[in-house]
């Protein structure tokens, strides 16, 4: 019942009571009429909510001028149309709906709310426009609805869940370089520049060179030879396409949101987004040249390899894989769950309100007062929480164990009678004065912890409700409903992982704690180096001649763990393959070797000094990585935000076009 309903009911009951006590029939009948009417409205509304609300349906269509689409593209705008209707009998005279825009898209214009009557013949429609600033997955959860009667006496708020996942495929963003008078750079090579610079047996002319004994006569360029008065041989392009495999790092370290970097529309930028942009650009450029491209997505747990092909279906599949990878969020098992609990609970309250009601999901109130959850935790959260955890133990010792022990000691001493007088006096004093004082102190501490632990009790309630929710969600099959709840309540790491999984699955951006209780960085993940090395060796094993392997990985924090990867690269280079390493570069840090006054931090302030030290650390780490790979003849580039895809392609092109001297290095 709403405030308006309670107020009106109060007035009606007052009228009725005055009519009864004053014996005024008119007043009594009027009061009774109004009370009956309010009761009737309540009953009718409650029945309507219980019987017809489950027939409320929502249909959604996301598309552009050509119609609805199942896949979206980064950088484009789309129209979202949502229709809420009632299937079957019944009518709701007033429903207010609000569509929830996913965090992966940017709301451009149009209203996301509508209200009015809903029945089989009447429906509510919401239409608005969105744009997709980053690749990933756009998850439309559903619509939030509020049902009320005509008077506004009773209201029911709920969420109509209809999750729809739409992949946002990476688009190729071509950046301008220079002013408006400078021509934009193209991905495709200008005509006349040969892209396959290896000589072969094709039909396109690549180059002219001096005649060498053994060259077939049909390759002699007679006209040029006549002009130069010596034999000149034509070199033709190789028609063997280049096979390229992209190894994209999707581990937790590249999924951490870059501080201060906000893409268009308010979406937070991750290094993974930059890697996906690069990979998508390279993929498209190779596809236009009919080169074969493969993809390997790896993280700290394993890798997924797609072998190089060049069909359009293959290209679409790779783009979909990259889009799905862009939707991943960082996961760290040792993150403090209390840091993520408020945002997860707030989100669950919006999307799963009926599963968090006390009628179906409750915790006894006394439990939160007396029993700390979990019993053992690695996280130190302050003295108040330590007191909250140990209050029952303190009470037990202070009121029972210690006084009892004192009593026993006194009885033993009194029975044997061999103790000196002062000892007996002391023990008696401790028993009769110290005991009550200790008990009083223990009780005071106990009451103090009860009164000051309101925040902890709130977090415990939230934790229990969310844990129960995780156990019954259909997408979470790893938790059994019989024992999963207790496991989540007692295991901080397990609960933290499920919280992060819940937030990542629903595409809710959140600030994941970067450091654990011991101050260790949670997202270093050195295990991915071995996974990458293994995947690279597999690709080399299955590869053919002269393949190109591009490693798009964050190795800056792992320069001391590169041995397995270097060994794998050594094998690849030994088999005459080409390897290129591209590391994502943090935003706001000047590129190594380039002085940039805008990005040079001030060193006369403490934050500036710390920033300067961290920049220097990054540059040093990049230098170490580059030196480590340079010994093997492998180039390392950093994909800073202003470097466009053509620049990276140019580096790849230079690698491709390196002349080969038989028996020598490229």
């Amino acid at each position, binding site marked *: 019942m709403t405030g*308006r309903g309670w*107020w*009106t009911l109060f*007035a*009606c009951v*007052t009228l*009725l*009571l*005055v*009519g*009864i*006590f*004053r*014996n*005024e*029939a*008119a007043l*009594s*009948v*009027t009061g*009774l*009429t*109004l*009370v*009956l*009417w309010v009761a*009737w409205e309540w009953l009718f509304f*409650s029945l309507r909510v*219980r019987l017809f609300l*489950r027939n409320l349906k929502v249909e959604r269509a996301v598309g552009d001028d050509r119609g609805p689409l199942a896949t979206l593209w980064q950088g484009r705008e789309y129209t979202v149309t949502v229709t809420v209707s009632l299937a079957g009998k019944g009518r709701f*005279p007033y429903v*207010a709906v609000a569509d*929830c825009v996913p965090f992966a898209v940017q*709301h451009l214009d149009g*209203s*996301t*709310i*509508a*209200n009015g*009557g809903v029945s089989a013949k009447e429906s509510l429609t*919401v239409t608005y426009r969105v744009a997709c600033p980053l690749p990933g997955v756009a998850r439309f959860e559903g619509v939030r609805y*509020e049902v009320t009667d005509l*008077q*506004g006496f009773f209201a029911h708020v709920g969420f109509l869940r209809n999750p729809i996942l739409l992949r946002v495929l990476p688009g190729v963003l071509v950046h301008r370089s220079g002013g408006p008078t400078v021509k934009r750079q193209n991905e495709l090579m200008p005509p006349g520049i040969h892209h396959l610079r290896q000589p072969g047996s094709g039909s396109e002319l690549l180059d002219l060179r001096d005649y060498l004994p053994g060259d077939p006569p049909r390759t002699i360029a007679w006209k040029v030879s006549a002009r130069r008065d010596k034999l000149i041989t034509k070199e033709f392009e190789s028609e063997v396409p280049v096979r390229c495999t992209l190894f994209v790092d999707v581990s937790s370290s590249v999924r951490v949101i870059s501080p201060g970097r906000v893409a268009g529309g*308010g979406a937070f930028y991750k290094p993974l987004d930059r890697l996906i942009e690069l990979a998508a650009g390279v993929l498209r450029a190779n596809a236009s040249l009919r080169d074969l491209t493969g993809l390997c997505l790896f993280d700290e747990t394993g890798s997924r390899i797609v072998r190089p092909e060049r069909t359009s279906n293959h290209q679409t599949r790779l783009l979909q894989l990259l889009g799905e990878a862009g939707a991943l969020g960082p996961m760290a098992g040792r993150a403090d769950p209390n840091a993520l609990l408020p945002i997860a609970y707030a989100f669950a309250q919006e999307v799963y309100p*009926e599963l968090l009601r006390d009628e179906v999901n409750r915790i006894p109130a006394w439990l939160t007062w007396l029993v700390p959850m*979990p*019993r*053992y935790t*690695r996280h130190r959260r302050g003295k108040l929480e330590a007191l909250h955890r140990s209050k029952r133990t303190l009470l037990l010792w202070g009121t029972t164990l210690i006084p009892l022990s004192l009593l026993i000691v006194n009885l033993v001493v009194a029975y044997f009678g061999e103790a000196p007088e002062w000892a007996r006096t002391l023990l008696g004093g401790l028993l009769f004065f110290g005991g009550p004082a200790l008990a009083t102190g223990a009780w005071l501490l106990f009451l103090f912890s009860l009164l000051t632990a309101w925040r902890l009790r709130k977090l415990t309630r939230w934790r229990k409700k969310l844990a*129960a929710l995780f*156990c*019954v969600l259909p997408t979470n099959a790893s938790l059994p409903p019989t*024992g999963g*709840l207790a*496991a989540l*309540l*007692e*295991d901080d*790491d397990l609960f933290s992982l499920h919280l992060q999984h819940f937030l990542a699955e629903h595409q809710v951006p959140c600030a994941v704690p970067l450091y654990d209780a011991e101050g260790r960085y949670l997202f270093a993940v050195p295990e991915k180096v071995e996974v990458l090395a293994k995947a690279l060796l597999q690709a080399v094993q299955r590869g053919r001649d002269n393949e190109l392997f591009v490693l798009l990985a964050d190795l800056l924090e792992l320069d001391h763990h590169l041995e397995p990867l270097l060994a794998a690269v050594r094998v690849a280079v030994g088999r005459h393959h080409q390897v290129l390493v591209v590391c994502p570069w943090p935003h706001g840090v000047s590129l190594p070797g380039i002085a940039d006054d805008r990005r040079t931090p001030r060193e006369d302030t403490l934050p500036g000094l710390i920033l300067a030290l961290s920049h220097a650390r990054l540059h040093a780490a990049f230098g170490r990585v580059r030196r480590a790979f340079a010994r093997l003849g492998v180039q390392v580039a950093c994909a800073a935000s202003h470097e466009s895809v053509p620049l990276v392609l140019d580096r790849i092109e230079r690698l491709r076009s390196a002349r080969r001297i038989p028996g020598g290095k490229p």
Partner: protein
Amino acid sequence: MTDDKDEKPSGERDYLLLAVGALLFVTVLLIQDLGFVAVLPLLIGGIGLAPRGAMGPGWVILTVAVVYAFRGRWSPIGFDDRSPNIIGDLFFAVAVFVYVVSHVRLMAIQRHAVPPDARRERPLRTKRLVGRWLLPAQAARRGGRLGDGELVWLILTAPVFALVAYVLWLRVAFDLPPPELERVPAVWRVILVAWGALILLGACHVILTYLKRSLASRPESLLVMQDYLWGETRGEQRRVNAWLSWGRRKRERKDDR
């Protein structure tokens, strides 16, 4: 959703006319009993019906109750000595009913139909929240979208409610109180009304709870059963899982060293 800001909604005008008419009728009926004091509810109702009026019909009802309470005509013995004016009482009840319903529905159109959410009043801190959760919503009902027969249904149900109330009032008024309460029959009537209301509420509550349980979704049913199981075995489960967690942490500490 069409934007009908430019046209005056017909529902707002209809309910306003109905409320004003009913209020005037109530005033006329009250003047016969109360004299010039009957203008007071009219004034308060008029302020509430004004374009930016903040007073709801509750104030008018309370004003009528207060005016009657201190009127000075109080009959301590049983039913009123005056000749019963059934038609007048019914007309009064219908008029007040029509006024209250019209005014409340007018408030839903002019101000808000759904309860305003305090979170929506806060300014958005970042642009990222624009178009997302907790958007300030239009809480008012669009008056141009009255349902079919809404006004007719209101006028037809008013006498029905009044008649039912009158029959119930007769049942209550003519019920003989027990000997202990013969001197204060009003208390006995209050007890009767409260008892009847509680029985009715209890029966409705049972029916609605049964409906809610029988129509619950699968996740809700799972949650209920899971809560029962957890409630019965939480002590044991807590002990086992706490030890498992402690053992795992001990192993991790050893590995970290």
